[in-house]
């Protein structure tokens, strides 16, 4: 699970969202201060990207990073802690996203909404 969240070749295989989306560019420098850059291309040739930085890494168990999405305007910095804990035969993954304040969170949700609508329209286009 840790590898699937930190190694570019693995991330490119699954972190894609709606069908038809690919990730031609995936930079993931898994060390404190290392850069993150994911670029997605939607079926119609348009795309969007995300940048971020790793803050803390505990191999196999924990990742702390910040990220922002460009749609194309950047969303507020999202501070994300991802934990992987053994759970029976599998792994329990816990993600905690923290935004600096309530006002930022509102803006984030508004952007997410817009983005969600965009994804819906993209899917709708593919159905017509």
């Amino acid at each position, binding site marked *: 699970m840790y590898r699937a969240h930190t190694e570019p070749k*693995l991330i490119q295989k699954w972190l894609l969202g709606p069908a038809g989306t690919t990730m031609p560019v995936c930079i993931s420098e898994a060390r404190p201060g290392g850069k993150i850059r994911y670029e997605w291309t939607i079926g119609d040739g348009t795309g969007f990207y995300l940048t971020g930085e790793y803050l803390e890494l505990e191999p196999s168990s924990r990742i702390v990073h910040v990220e922002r999405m460009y749609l194309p305007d950047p969303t507020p910095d999202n501070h994300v802690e991802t934990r992987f804990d053994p759970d029976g035969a599998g792994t329990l993954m816990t993600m905690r996203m923290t935004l600096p304040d309530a006002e930022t969170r509102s803006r984030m949700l508004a952007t997410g909404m817009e983005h969600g609508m965009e994804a819906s329209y993209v899917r709708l286009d593919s159905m017509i």
Partner: protein
Amino acid sequence: MQLAAPFEMSQPAISRHLKVLEGAGLIVRRADGTKRPCRLAKAGIEVIDQWLAVLREALAKNYEKLDEVLAALNSGNGEETL
């Protein structure tokens, strides 16, 4: 009072939370004597549900793919194809 009962939170704190929910259009409150009954605001909840549905679908697809990636890693012969 009824709404506060399940939570380890003071009545004023619950009232503040309800005020935020009301301001966000997620609940509707009315006055009934000294009581302030609340109900969910359908329109507000539906917007959240639509947004979550889009996220749910995208994330479900991602995690289905992640399962395949993990299965390939675990089978041991996935390395060549990575």
